[in-house]
């Protein structure tokens, strides 16, 4: 509670930033600042990583532009954290190379990579005060005493912890600890920020607030940021681009809305959105997309006997026409109703309805028509079929 208040009092986080951090390295628009901009591009070139027999990253290629906020998104165990740790130098690659700016850093020590990392657990040093925690990277870098003081003051002010410098992490709330971790990262003015699910230990309200704060902070500092999360809401709201990963492979990289509206494959389609996109077996005949005989949409694709049709829950209508399926669950969420159906063509089809409409009953057979975008994926590979 008090935590939230503090955050608010401390100002409009972003406003403080604009005022107090004029000398941000990348915010500078003079020549030298700009030059550095191009140096903090991040690249994974054909990185493979395995732990014993377990291949966790396969031919991983990713390029993060300077100043970009890129979110690595995927279910747990997809390799996103491993990719981040490889970039941090905490994990070796099995093959391939990693580049920061125009420098290959594949076998550099973490300390030589000019990066800062925010850990999921925050990893604050419990025996040091907040101030000592934030100082730590600067002292290691041999920064002069006066400069340490001013930079730490500034960092603490930025995250709104100026008054708590003498506390130990054990005396802080979860939200405050999270901000100490942020301060420790920004104080270094590194080329790249790495964040490993930094919000997962906060409660829902605080998470929402901090989400906006971190995004604003990143925009102000303009520092290239790689952010790992399994939470698609974080990904959609924070990232300039999202890289979706699954089973050690990169599935798609793009702006949040691109991913949502033009998923590159069936996995991305079903993973993004809440609920995820429905996947229904169907066919294409003479420009007509059919499910169980009935035409649901049109396409300019050539004929295929087997295709996976992707359609969002809000684009399905229950009516007299369309393909038949059986209602198995009806969930009333208040503002809307989710009707879950089953048919020979799909184990699970979710239809989103507004509460007002008449709702079907469980066991009833209904007919579904598509009223919106239809996505077609190859039934075998799951790849998007382009017309």
């Amino acid at each position: 509670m008090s935590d939230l208040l503090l955050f608010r009092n401390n100002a409009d986080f972003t406003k403080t930033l604009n005022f107090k951090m004029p000398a941000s390295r990348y915010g500078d628009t003079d020549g030298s600042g700009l030059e550095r901009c191009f140096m903090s591009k991040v690249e994974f070139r054909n990185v493979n990583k395995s732990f014993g027999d377990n291949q966790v990253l396969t031919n991983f290629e990713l390029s993060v532009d300077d100043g970009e906020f890129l979110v690595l998104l995927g279910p747990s165990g997809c390799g996103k954290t491993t990719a981040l740790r490889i970039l941090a130098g905490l994990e070796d690659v099995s093959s391939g190379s990693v580049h920061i700016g125009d420098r290959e850093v594949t076998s550099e020590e973490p300390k030589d990579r000019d990066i800062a990392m925010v850990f999921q657990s925050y990893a604050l040093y419990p025996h040091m005060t907040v101030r000592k925690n934030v100082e730590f990277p600067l002292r290691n870098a041999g920064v002069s005493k006066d400069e340490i003081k001013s930079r730490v003051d500034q960092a603490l002010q930025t995250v709104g912890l100026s008054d708590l410098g003498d506390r130990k992490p054990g005396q802080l709330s979860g939200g405050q600890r999270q901000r100490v971790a942020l301060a420790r990262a920004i104080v270094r003015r590194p080329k790249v920020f790495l964040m490993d699910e930094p919000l997962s230990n906060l409660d829902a309200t605080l998470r929402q607030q901090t989400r906006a704060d971190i995004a604003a902070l990143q925009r102000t500092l303009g520092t290239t940021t790689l952010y790992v999360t399994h939470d698609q809401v974080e990904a959609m709201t924070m990232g300039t681009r999202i890289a979706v990963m699954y089973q050690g492979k990169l599935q798609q990289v793009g702006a949040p809305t691109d991913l949502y509206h033009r998923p590159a494959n069936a996995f991305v389609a079903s993973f993004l959105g809440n609920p995820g996109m429905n996947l229904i077996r169907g066919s294409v005949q003479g420009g007509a997309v059919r499910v169980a005989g009935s035409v649901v949409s049109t396409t300019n694709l050539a004929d295929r006997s087997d295709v996976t049709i992707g359609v969002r829950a809000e684009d399905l209508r229950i009516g007299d026409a369309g393909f038949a399926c059986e209602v198995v669950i009806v969930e009333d969420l208040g503002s809307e109703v989710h009707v879950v159906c089953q048919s020979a063509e799909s184990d699970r089809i979710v239809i989103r309805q507004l509460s007002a409409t008449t709702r079907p009953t469980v066991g009833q057979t209904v007919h579904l028509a598509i009223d919106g975008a239809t996505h077609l994926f190859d039934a075998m590979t799951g790849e998007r079929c382009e017309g």
Partner: protein
Amino acid sequence: MASKQRRLAGRTGSYALLTLLAFIVGFPLYIIFAGSLMSLKEITSVPPSLFPMHPIWSTFRDAFVGGNLGQYLAVSFFQSGIIVVGQVLTSILAAFAFAYIQFPWKRTIFVAMLATSMIPFEVTVTANLQTVAALGWSETMQGLVVPFLATGFGIFLLRQAFLQIPKEMHEAAVIDGYSSWKFMWRVAVPLARPSIAALAVFSFLGAWNQYLWPLLETGSNKNIQTIQMGIRGVGGQVSTANVSLAAAAIAVAPLLILLVFFQKHLVRSLTAGAVK
């Protein structure tokens, strides 16, 4: 590239340090086995052999025949076995009572039992010798083992293990009508097996290596002297260094086997109370 070399150098340095430390710590143990196969000449020459070029196995025969090690070994296995079984049993019973049963004087008895670990056995040796004598157990096997059949540490360790069993297990058992006795043997003890194994390994190590009590209690009765007494008999004389080392090798071998196969259990018992 330069950083790759640096990493390689760092790794090489790590191995160099580890190997140096392993040499310092492991050399005496190595020499027990290597030396037991060397001739006296190999041991006394300057520099001495580091590896038995012509292994002599007769040292072990001398240790067994001349040093009568076979009997000492048998006594030690018997004495340690009884102590392990006794400590495990008494600890299970008491620890279970403290973890799961409400009974009068529980708190007082528990504190009294934990407090025993603050009284080192060495402090009670003098009076215990008299007690054992009064019981007519001087220079007997009973006198050797009975004083060690209970352990405050074991009770502590097993009580912790019992308390870690989810409460639901216990509630389910009570609903199913298990008596406390049945619950102990059918549920609690099987679930606490790792800690019981840890206690058993720890007890064995302690019992096998006992020195002061066997020395004073067994007196002149050679029939109940343990392997440590056996080494004491042949030990320390350089004139028969290889035979002494062979005896030491025999005495330490069972424990090394224990270390290799039950390292996890041993570590668990040795660090109980050390971390968290």
